[in-house]
């Protein structure tokens, strides 16, 4: 595998960047010289005009520190990025370290999004990192070898690198730490030869352990909420009780009387109470009296929205996402017609680390600590809020306690609030801004509520001849910077993904949607569109299989001739689950498949229904995500995606009454607990296709797999989510 080093476009930087400061004195740093986009060393970059940013540093202590392009919220991309570097560098796993990179889209831009902006999302981290981090590792390895050859006065041929030790056959050897200062002076190779996959030792190794396990089990892993700075104050914000309301006025007298409250200040999104401790801030906020201007607020509740959405299931003027043939005519001429409506509620992300950010002005810079999922954007937004230039903003990318999409906000909500609050108190102290659980759950940015209508016709042989799929729900992307890319002809790609790319061979098909404007803020939620489209399509396919009198697996396979990867995961999951054999007494099985973000996942769920309660005993999952970089992380993400999705379909719903959110904590919004977690078996399809993501694709199939199993057990089709809204006791 001969690869050319990245040639990023020669485009002048839009802003200045700090030099990394990493010179030979601190070892070898490899990165990108910004103006030329060339991979180079920090030392060589010193002689060139323009800034430099480092991908990886081999320190004098022997550590290899990788600056990751993608932030880690638990999905394991730090471990994954280190794996790619360590593989080509032939480092020892114990010497690997990872930090969050930022501040240079040329270096860290998401290559799966075109490389112009840094961001984590859409399960792209591995795909975006796969080539460049291996190349950086290989280049650093070549420089270490060159340094060794010159030190020892031998040719480079014959020098080997293994587990962080550089060796010559005649007995010489040196560590990375010893060679790093000299390696930093070596020319950066113009081309590097990457290992043949047969030589991989870390990539694909199921025994490789996560780099963050020790810190996360000993309490030493610092999250944003754990940042402590001298003189730091803590702030909480009183937000409006309805979306779209604004502050009309406030009386802070009682709040100021609370011991420990330092300031009460208005910021664009509400009123911030700033105090010496979190508790004082919370008590101060309780004492605060705010009057709200609600003239522009959303005052509809779930019932009104459901009624509106129902009317749109029949309304003209839908935007067409995909149309082939004449679905209406095909259905009109079908031997049998099946229709079904599905209802999906708003869902909260409810990541366990509450939303938080820390901001201060220090040594002429604005520093912001946070779970920075879109760093370039937040650097800009923080600068705008602080009234400084983006070059004067320093970000600290923190390990993040879960995200599930919530931290990928294009307006930087909690980050902007922290900076706005710190500015409003005159930068007199660092400010940690914290949302409580209730602030988060009532604060919007939900997976949108959707209604779906599906209608299909079967011919006399039970083949689907026509398919109509109508989706009604808010656009996530409308009004965001992504609108121009991802909303085409009125179709928000994130509303229809998983539906418009239905893989089944159906000659006449139409998928369309209405995207009503509703004042409830919405956002991507782990697996985004496929969280509802996979449920609707895969549950409906199951209904059609039943109507056609066919086995659900065989029915699907017959329509997937041109989709070998869908077929392969279906067949693998079915085989390992014992599909076609009788399930254990009292249980029934259901199957579903979904491609999302380029990864293919099939799941077979084994359930029982007793006294109206659905119990998922076992889930067999097959995943094809191309090259499996970290097999154990892939398994963990499938297990986690299944648990996350299962909690939502069984019990998750955010509802509104007259515009007010009715849930505030985990009592009103229950999530999956350990006693509800099924035994999950994950089987990874061996593949040399380019790697795709696993953070999200485990989620979509679990809902329909369980729904289909419940139908097999009870005959009842669950079309209104969550399951807790259905009475299965009388089924």
């Amino acid at each position, binding site marked *: 595998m001969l690869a050319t080093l990245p040639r990023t476009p020669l485009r002048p930087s839009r802003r200045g960047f700090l030099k990394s400061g990493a010179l030979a004195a601190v070892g070898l740093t490899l990165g990108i010289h910004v103006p030329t986009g060339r991979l180079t060393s920090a030392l060589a970059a010193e002689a060139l005009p323009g800034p430099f940013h480092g991908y990886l540093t081999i320190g004098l202590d022997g550590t290899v520190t990788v600056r990751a392009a993608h932030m880690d*919220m*638990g*999905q*394991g991309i730090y471990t994954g990025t280190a794996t790619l570097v360590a593989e080509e560098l032939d480092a020892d796993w114990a010497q690997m370290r990872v930090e969050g990179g930022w501040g240079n889209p040329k270096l860290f831009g998401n290559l799966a999004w075109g490389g112009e902006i840094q961001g984590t999302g859409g399960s792209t981290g591995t795909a975006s990192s796969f080539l460049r981090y291996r190349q950086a590792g290989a280049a650093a390895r070549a420089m270490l070898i060159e340094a060794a050859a010159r030190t020892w006065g031998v040719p480079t041929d014959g020098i080997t690198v293994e587990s962080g030790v550089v060796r010559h056959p005649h007995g010489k050897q040196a560590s990375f730490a010893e060679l790093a200062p000299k390696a930093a002076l070596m020319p950066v190779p113009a081309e590097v030869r990457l290992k043949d996959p047969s030589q991989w030792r870390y990539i694909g190794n199921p025994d490789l*352990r*996560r780099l*963050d*396990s*020790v*810190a*996360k*089990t*000993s*309490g*030493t*892993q*610092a*999250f944003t*909420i*754990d940042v*402590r700075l001298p003189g730091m104050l803590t702030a909480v914000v009183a937000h409006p009780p309805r979306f779209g309301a604004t502050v009309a006025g406030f009386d802070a007298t009682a709040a100021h009387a609370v*011991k420990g409250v330092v300031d009460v200040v208005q910021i664009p999104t509400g009123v911030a109470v700033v105090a010496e*401790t*979190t*508790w004082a801030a919370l008590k101060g906020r309780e004492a605060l009296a705010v009057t709200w201007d609600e003239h522009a607020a959303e005052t509809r509740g779930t019932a009104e929205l459901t009624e509106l959405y129902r009317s749109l299931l029949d309304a003209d003027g839908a935007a067409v996402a995909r149309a082939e043939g004449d679905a209406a005519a095909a259905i009109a001429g079908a031997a049998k017609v099946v229709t079904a409506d599905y209802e999906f509620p708003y869902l909260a992300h*409810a*990541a*366990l*680390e*509450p939303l938080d950010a820390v901001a201060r002005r220090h040594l002429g810079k604005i520093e912001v600590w946070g779970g920075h999922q879109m760093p370039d954007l937040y650097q800009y937004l923080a600068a705008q809020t602080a009234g400084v230039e983006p070059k004067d903003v320093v970000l600290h990318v923190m*390990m*993040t*306690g*879960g*995200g599930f999409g919530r931290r990928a906000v294009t307006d930087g909500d909690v980050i902007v609030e922290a900076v706005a609050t710190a500015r409003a108190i005159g930068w007199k102290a660092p400010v940690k801004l*914290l949302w*409580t*659980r209730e602030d988060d759950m009532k604060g919007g940015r939900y997976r949108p509520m959707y209604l779906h209508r599906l209608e299909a016709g079967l011919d006399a042989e039970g083949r689907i001849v026509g398919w109509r799929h109508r989706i009604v729900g808010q656009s996530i992307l409308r009004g965001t910077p992504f609108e121009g890319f991802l909303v085409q002809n009125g179709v928000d790609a994130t509303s229809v993904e998983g539906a418009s790319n239905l893989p089944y061979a159906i000659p006449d098909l139409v998928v369309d949607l209405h995207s009503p404007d509703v004042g409830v803020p919405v956002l991507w939620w782990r697996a985004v569109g496929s969280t509802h489209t996979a449920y609707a399509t895969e549950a409906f396919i199951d209904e059609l299989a039943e109507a056609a009198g066919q086995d659900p697996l065989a029915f699907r396979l017959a329509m997937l001739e041109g989709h070998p990867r869908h077929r392969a995961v279906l067949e693998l999951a079915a085989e390992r689950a014992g599909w076609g054999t009788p399930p254990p007494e009292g249980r029934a099985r259901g199957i579903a498949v979904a491609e999302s973000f380029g990864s293919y996942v099939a799941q077979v769920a084994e359930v029982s229904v007793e006294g109206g309660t659905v119990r998922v005993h076992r889930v067999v999952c097959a995943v094809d995500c191309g090259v499996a970089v970290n097999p*154990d992380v892939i398994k*963990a*993400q499938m*297990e*986690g*995606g*299944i*648990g*996350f999705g*299962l*909690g939502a379909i069984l019990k998750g719903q955010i509802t509104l009454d007259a515009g007010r959110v009715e849930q505030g*904590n*985990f*009592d009103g919004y229950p*999530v*999956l*607990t*350990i*006693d509800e*977690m099924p*035994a*999950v078996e994950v089987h990874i399809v061996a593949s040399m296709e380019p790697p795709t993501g696993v953070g999200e694709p485990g989620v979509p199939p679990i809902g329909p797999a369980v729904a289909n199993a419940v139908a097999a057990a009870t005959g009842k089709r669950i079309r209104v989510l969550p399951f807790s809204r259905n009475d299965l006791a009388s089924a």
Partner: protein
Amino acid sequence: MLTLTINGVAHEVDADPDMPLLWAIRDLAGLTGTKYGCGAALCGACTVHVDGEPVRSCVMPVSAAVGSAITTIEGVDGPAARAVRAAWEKLDVVQCGYCQPGQVMAAVALLQATPRPTEADIDSAMTNICRCATYQRIRAAVHEAARLMET
């Protein structure tokens, strides 16, 4: 001023008596391993041991902990704690890791009281929420820790 004994060390804290122990530990004693997740004893991220018993510190008034031995993730030790950490690392339980200090504290308390827990023991003791849904590995790691404690 109140005196809290945390991990064997006396901390003088200037706290209102109704301040939850969690915030005294985090904001006043400066020990941030114990996490805030819900503030209502629903998630368990704030689990510490008070006189050896697992407690959700987000709803315990700090005044109620005066005179007790408080143990946090930073200070928990002993055969069960070592076994739990070793098992957690061996099985790579963590994902985001935010709930894991609380999970570890709950598991240590379980194993100290019940060295060979059944599935039902685990279900009733390990009620902490993990939004990454690492539950399968938590269950396996509790069993693994129980085995490690016997060797």
